[in-house]
């Protein structure tokens, strides 16, 4: 038996042994759930306290602690003043200091009291003014109540979500949020955008800071299951690629020649993991140069801190435009990963999930049926039963209301952003500086992967 395979079998046995034994767990691993369990157990007995906490905190949250402290102090001071503590106060027992000091003391206290109440007022106002509240379960009701959709986007990625000169967000991801707004409100402008870094994006969605995360986010099983997210569809099939400065590195035309290069990458992304896997599997060395923010990565690459820039290929085309001399940089042909990018919502709210998912399908379906922004009103009169059904022109249709929106939702979507094809061409395709070909993002009828489930 060659040594190589022998070692392999030994390690195998070792790992089997570990499975047979009880899974070794760290002490903390055991105590933390136990602690939580203990506390949950306590809950029944101390429901009174909890009720108090609930009443006390749900309205004011963290600032209540603050208020309480200030309040107690103020209460204390006022009580003391009013009770006429010997030697001090309005009864004026402190003769030796004369009348003047009395008046001054009184004034100071009054001033203190007023100041404290002003402080409380400010704190309260600030807390109320800045605290936004979003729904826990019924996102749709909440969105309707506040009158707009809060949409999480990237901090700026050309073609997907980036603010233009006037500060309006443009791109596929931004337009997708507008489409959802059109479906819900019949008005594509009822969206507010929140730029999020890669690190913040999931917490922002989980905590309800945003209603949809439409931020070039890759659909993975881990995110679907462990992070409590639901992916509603794939608005762009992407893959990770490499970009180099061809002027500085003549002769490099494949990613396999990159051994020893310094690679710029954004931290905390799947990109970072794919990069490690790719170089490892091809037995190449590299030197990671990692940054938190996209603009830092851009700056470092442009300044020559690294030789290679890696991110989703669509992103590379967008970033190339922002570099000092775009013509010098080339995107290498290799695609090293599958990056299906799509909108994400919270788990546990099926209605909202369905609205987002079917907005996506409606965008695809209208393209397949040839319904565009320009011809949508004419199409309503079409004889084609499928078109009539999709546009909500069928008699007694309940498709829209069952979804929780109006029956002309598809018309609203198309009027707001056009169909998927129009959205694509306008933001990343021929109508944009990026000039990305449809490729695998074409309709299934044209050899692509975009396939809408039937709307019926």
């Amino acid at each position, binding site marked *: 038996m060659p040594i190589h395979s022998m070692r392999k079998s030994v390690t195998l046995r070792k790992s089997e042994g570990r499975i047979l034994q009880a899974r070794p767990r760290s002490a903390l691993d055991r105590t933390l759930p136990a602690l939580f369990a203990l506390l949950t157990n306590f809950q029944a007995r101390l429901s009174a306290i909890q009720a108090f906490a609930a009443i006390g905190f*749900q309205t004011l*949250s*963290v600032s209540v602690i603050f208020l309480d*402290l200030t309040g107690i*102090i103020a209460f*204390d*001071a006022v009580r*003391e003043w009013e009770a006429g*503590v010997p*030697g*001090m106060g309005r009864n004026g027992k*402190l003769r030796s200091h004369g009348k003047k000091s009395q008046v001054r*003391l009184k004034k*100071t206290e009054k*001033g*203190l009291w007023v*100041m404290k109440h002003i*402080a409380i*007022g*400010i704190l309260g*106002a*600030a*807390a109320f*003014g*800045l*605290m*936004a*509240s*979003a*729904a*826990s379960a019924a996102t749709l009701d*909440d969105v309707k109540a506040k009158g707009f959709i809060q949409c999480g986007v990237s*901090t700026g990625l050309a073609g997907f979500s980036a*603010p233009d000169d006037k*500060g309006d967000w443009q791109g596929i991801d931004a337009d997708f949020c507008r489409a959802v707004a059109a479906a819900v409100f019949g008005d594509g402008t009822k969206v*507010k955008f*929140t*730029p*999020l*870094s890669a*690190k*913040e994006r999931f*917490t*922002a969605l*989980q*905590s*309800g*800071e945003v209603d949809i995360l439409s931020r070039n986010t890759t659909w993975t099983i881990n995110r679907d299951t462990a992070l409590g997210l639901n992916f509603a569809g794939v608005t762009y099939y992407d893959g990770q690629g490499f970009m180099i400065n061809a002027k500085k590195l003549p002769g490099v035309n494949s990613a396999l020649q990159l051994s020893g290069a310094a690679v710029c990458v954004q931290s905390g992304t799947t990109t970072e993991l794919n990069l490690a896997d790719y170089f490892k599997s091809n037995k190449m060395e590299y030197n990671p140069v990692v940054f*938190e*923010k996209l*603009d*830092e990565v*851009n*700056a470092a690459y*442009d300044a020559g801190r690294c030789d290679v820039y890696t991110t989703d290929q669509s992103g590379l085309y967008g970033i190339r*435009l*922002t*570099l*000092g*001399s775009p013509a010098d940089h080339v995107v290498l042909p290799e695609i090293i990963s599958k990056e299906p990018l799509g909108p994400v919502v919270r788990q546990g709210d099926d209605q909202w999930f369905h609205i987002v998912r079917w907005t996506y399908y409606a965008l695809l379906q209208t393209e397949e049926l040839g319904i565009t922004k320009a011809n949508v009103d004419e199409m309503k009169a079409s004889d084609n039963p499928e078109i009539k059904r999709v546009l909500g022109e069928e008699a007694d249709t309940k498709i829209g209301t069952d979804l929780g929106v109006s029956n002309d939702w598809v018309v609203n979507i198309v009027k707001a952003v056009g169909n998927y094809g129009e959205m694509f061409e306008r933001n990343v395709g021929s109508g944009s500086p990026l000039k990305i070909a449809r490729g695998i993002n074409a309709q299934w009828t044209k050899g692509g992967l975009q396939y809408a489930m039937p709307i019926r």
Partner: protein
Amino acid sequence: MQEHDLSFVRVEMAAAQPAPPSERGLGAWIRRNLIASIGDTILTIIGIVLVAMILPQVINWAFINAQWTGTDRTFCATVAQGGIQPDGWTGACWAFVNAKFGQFMFGRYPLDERWRPILIAVLFAALLVPLLIPKVRRKGLNAMLFFGALPILAFILLVGGVFGLPHVETSLWGGLLVTLSLSFVGIAVSLPLGIVLALGRRSKMPIVKMLCVVFIETVRGIPLITVLFMASVMLPLFLPAGVTFDKFLRALIGVSLFAAAYMAEVVRGGLQAIPRGQYEGADSLGLGYWQKMGLIVLPQALKLVIPGIVNTFIGMFKDTSLVYIIGMFDLLGVVKLNFSDANWATPQTARSGLVFAAFIFWLFCFGMSRYSMFTERRLDTGHKR
């Protein structure tokens, strides 16, 4: 016989003699201060060489060679880099700062609404200056306006959404606006909170004391970034589903709590320096706890630690730059953000922007420290040992 009177009384002072020439004038000054000994001379030579190496370069870069006007990167790039400057040119690109000045001050605050922060800034200055000059009267009213009315007005004006003012989200705020509002609120919150914590730490109530000690020592032991991280990543998990905080408010809470812990230690130092007699005297007058503290102890203690308090303020002012890491754009963040603008990307851009930001920060911090020295001297009643 008057003429023979030997006693002599001088009725007028003799005119002071000028110092001997060797102790006078430039030469003596140089001898005393620059070349007193061989070692001193060597040091002076080293110093002169250092200054001669650095100063002309800095002046050249910042003033003589600097590009003051321009519309894009070509004005600050050499011919080889695709610009108009001669090869080998290095100079500050003030044109970049000039072009981005609005952003540096207000971030992405909407152009049509910028009168609001400007108005607040004018009011801020108009209220602050008389507050700082000791001679101006009506300090009480002034302080009320500054700490009471101005924050409310600023809040209404800057956030908007009422009285027909369009709402401006805090995610659009940026630049010096964010730096100053964070610091102002931080200072206004951390000082009272720090005093409360310091009193709590010296309290006789064991539970209160323990809580204050734990809070102060924990916060002082961890970096601000971790606190901000916690505010931005963990806070949402601590709140009931659906309740969220504005990012700006989160940063505000983080910075204020952090500064409060440091403030508490400074104030505690002051409290410890007050002799026991003062406490006992207050007790014997029959003052209650808050009266004792508010009227007797704190006024003396705070006066003692003015330098420490101002140092904490300065530290906090500088620390506000860390909010850049949790994705907010204060002055430094906005400057940094603009480095990636392809329209301005030159080797000089980063340096110029950073020097500009450093100058602004320096101005505020240096001003604060000088003013604290002035106050310290003014309040010095000569009791200090």
